[in-house]
C-alpha cells in the first residue's frame, strides 16, 4: 500500500468509528437530541424532530458503510457536507455567545471553537475520501474488480 492509501484507509477507519459512535449514542434519545438541535436556533422548529430522528441513522449508516468500504466516495460527500454544516452551526453559536451543548455525542459538552476545529478536520478527511477512488480493503474495490 502506498503512503497515500494508508492515510486514506486510516481516515476511513477514524470517520467510521466517530460516525458510528456519534449515531449510536444519539439514536436512543431523539428528545434530547432534538432539544440540542433546537438550541442552535438555526433550523426551523418544524424540521428539528425530523433531523433528530434522521441524523443518528445517517451517521450509523455512513459509519457502517465506511467500515466495510462501501459507497466510500458517497460517504465522503455526506461526511464533508455534514461536518462542514455542523462546524458552521457551531461557529455561529460560539459567535452569538450561546452557551449550549454541542450535541456531538451523548455527554454534555459546551460548544466551542475546539469543536469547530474538530469538525473541520473531519470534513478534510471526508473530502479526501470523496476525491479518492476505490480503496484497498474495501467492498468498492471488490465490486470494481468484478466489473
Amino acid at each position, binding site marked *: 500500500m502506498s503512503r497515500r492509501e494508508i492515510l486514506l484507509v486510516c481516515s476511513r477507519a477514524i470517520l467510521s468509528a466517530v460516525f458510528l459512535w456519534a449515531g449510536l449514542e444519539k*439514536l436512543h434519545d*431523539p*428528545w434530547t437530541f*432534538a*432539544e440540542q438541535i*433546537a*438550541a442552535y436556533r438555526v433550523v*426551523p*422548529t*418544524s*424540521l*428539528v*424532530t*425530523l433531523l*433528530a*430522528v*434522521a*441524523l*443518528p*441513522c*445517517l451517521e*450509523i*449508516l*455512513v459509519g457502517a*458503510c465506511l467500515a466495510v468500504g462501501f*459507497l466510500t*466516495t*458517497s*460517504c*465522503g*460527500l*455526506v461526511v464533508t*457536507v455534514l461536518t462542514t454544516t455542523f462546524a458552521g452551526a457551531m461557529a455561529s453559536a460560539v459567535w452569538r455567545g*450561546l*452557551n449550549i451543548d454541542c450535541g456531538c455525542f451523548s455527554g454534555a459538552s459546551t460548544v466551542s471553537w475546539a469543536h469547530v476545529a474538530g469538525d473541520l478536520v473531519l470534513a478534510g478527511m471526508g473530502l479526501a475520501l*470523496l476525491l479518492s477512488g476505490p480503496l484497498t480493503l474495501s467492498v468498492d474495490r471488490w465490486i470494481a474488480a468484478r466489473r
Partner: protein
Amino acid sequence: MRFIDTLIGAVALVLLATTMGVILNRASTDPVGLLTPFRPRLPARVGEIDAPTARRFALLGALFVDAREPEAYRAGHIPGALNLPAEQVEDRPVAGDLLARIREARMVVIYCDGPECLASFHVARRLRVLGLENLWLMPVGWPGWEAAGNPRTTGDTP
C-alpha cells in the same frame, strides 16, 4: 459521470437514513412528533395554557414572565409582566429581587414569541430548578395574546 454516481449514492444514503429514522421513531414507545414545531417535554409540574385561560389567570392575580429579548419586551408586553430573557437565566443567576417577586406570586405564566419559540421552556426549566411551583407556559405566546385582543403595554417597565 463519476460525480453523478457519488451524488446518487449520497442521496440514497440520506433517503435510507431518513426512512430508517422515521420507522424507528414510529416503533418507539416515546416517539417525537414529526414535521410539527418542536416542543420539548414540559418540565415536571409545569402546565400549558391557552390565551383565554391566561387572561383568566391574569384576573386572578397571576404574574406573567416575558422570556423574550428586552427589545421585544419594550415594543409590547402583557401589563405587569416581568422581563426575564432566556439567555439571562441560562448564563447567570436570576437577580434576587426578580426571583423574590416571582416566588411571591400565586401563579406564574411564562411566555415568549409563540409556538416556535423555546425561550419560555428554558425559563420554566430554570425556575423549576430554583424550586418554584405553580408555573404555566402559554405556548401561543405574545402573538396569541395580542391576537385575542387582550390588554398590552409598552416600555421597559412592567
